[in-house]
């Protein structure tokens, strides 16, 4: 093969083919037709008398398109030639995308950098989710958000990297990542309102500090009423805990502030003439049903720790002489 004469017929044929492919991106068009003139010229050299070579530019373009796996003319690809701002933008985007794809193909390190970007995008979207969707779901929720965002970012990148339908999703992901990045830069990592560093009443050590006062099933106990075995209310009763501390319903911090005067707490509150309300919602009667079958023998050593030793035999009669030193002995009579 020596020189290849530029046949005028070839040039006009190639121009017609290019016109038929005008809806393609500039990269696709160049890729398809860059060597076409030389190929056709050589083809004509091989068979100069073949009239079919330059006969049908429309059919030739359609064959090129179909074999290259490109959509037929008038397909879903927006036409750059239709004019308008969007068409121009679309054309510019396709040109940029084509250049990007070529760059990635020729520079393998760019591929690794892009993998890094997928991870970074996932992390940034994770921050975005933590700030918005998973704001109240605690550490596990935030962690789940990060995992979901990372997986979604990777999936988005891996799944049909050239799919045009995912452009909006891709754009949304980039916007979310950008928003999160801006938030990070603007506020700094530590001041991000992530749930794990959200200020709370709990101390940073994480130990549980109970609320002051006495609680029953989550509700604060405001007063206590003591009834004797005869059913009569005992006003002025003192109640002790297992370790000998006198029970007070006043909040702990109240007596802990300063040095409180030693005080005797008698129940129910209010009977000693203080302005403590006797009760809320329930009118405590002076008497309740007495416990007739049960007789309680108080120990003479009242200050000793209470350790009731009920008799194993319910039919046994009380035998106070059997264990006079015991703190208390209760037995049921049939």
């Amino acid at each position, binding site marked *: 093969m*020596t*020189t*290849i004469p530029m046949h005028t017929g070839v040039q006009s044929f190639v121009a017609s083919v290019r016109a038929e492919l005008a809806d393609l991106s500039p990269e696709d068009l160049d*890729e*398809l037709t*860059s*060597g*076409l*003139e*030389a*190929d*056709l*010229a*050589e*083809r004509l050299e*091989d068979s100069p008398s073949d009239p079919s070579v330059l006969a049908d530019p429309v059919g*030739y*373009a359609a*064959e*090129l*398109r*179909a*074999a*290259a*796996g*490109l959509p037929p003319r008038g397909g879903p690809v927006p036409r750059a030639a239709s004019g308008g701002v969007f068409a121009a933008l679309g054309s510019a985007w396709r040109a940029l995308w084509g250049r990007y794809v070529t760059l990635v*193909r020729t520079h393998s390190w760019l591929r690794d950098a892009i993998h890094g970007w997928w991870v970074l995008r996932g992390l940034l979207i994770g921050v975005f989710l933590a700030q918005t969707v998973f704001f109240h779901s605690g550490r596990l929720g935030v962690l789940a958000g990060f995992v979901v965002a990372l997986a979604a970012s990777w999936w988005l990148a891996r799944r049909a990297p050239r799919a045009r339908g995912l452009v909006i999703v891709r754009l949304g992901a980039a916007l979310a990542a950008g928003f999160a990045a801006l938030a990070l830069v603007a506020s700094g990592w530590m001041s991000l309102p992530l749930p794990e560093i959200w200020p709370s009443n709990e101390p940073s050590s994480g130990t549980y500090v109970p609320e002051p006062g006495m609680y029953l099933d989550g509700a604060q106990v405001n007063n206590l009423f003591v009834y004797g075995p005869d059913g009569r209310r005992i006003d002025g009763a003192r109640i002790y805990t297992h370790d000998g501390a006198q029970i007070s319903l006043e909040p702990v911090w109240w007596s802990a502030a300063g040095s409180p005067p030693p005080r005797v707490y008698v129940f129910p509150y209010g009977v000693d003439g203080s302005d403590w309300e006797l009760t809320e919602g329930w009118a405590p009667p002076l008497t309740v049903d007495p416990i007739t079958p049960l007789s309680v023998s108080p120990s003479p050593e009242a200050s000793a720790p209470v350790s009731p030793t009920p008799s194993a035999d319910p039919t046994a009669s009380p035998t106070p002489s059997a264990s006079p030193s015991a703190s208390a002995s209760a037995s049921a009579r049939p």
Partner: protein
Amino acid sequence: MDATQLIKGVLDLAVLAVLQAEDGYGYDVVRRLRSAGLDEVGDASVYGTLRRLFSAGALTSYVVPSDEGPHRKYYGLTPTGRATLHSQGKTWGVFAHTMSTLLEQAGVRS
């Protein structure tokens, strides 16, 4: 049956097979396919196939400058392309054998 329809199904494999021996530019590939006996293959189909295989990463391409005429764009197989040729070639072998057996049983001689 029109051989053009058959070629469409195996054109990728045929192009990869041609380029396995030696890198080539567009019309060079066409010529080698024809000389191998695939007379019905269309120029544009081959060019489009080259472009598609390149996009899929099966081919690499480079431009060879020429003092006498326009520069030529050569295509060659990538490792992906070689792997594709290998696996598709095996598939084709099994398929062709199956068809031959079927036709022999039907009394048709190729």
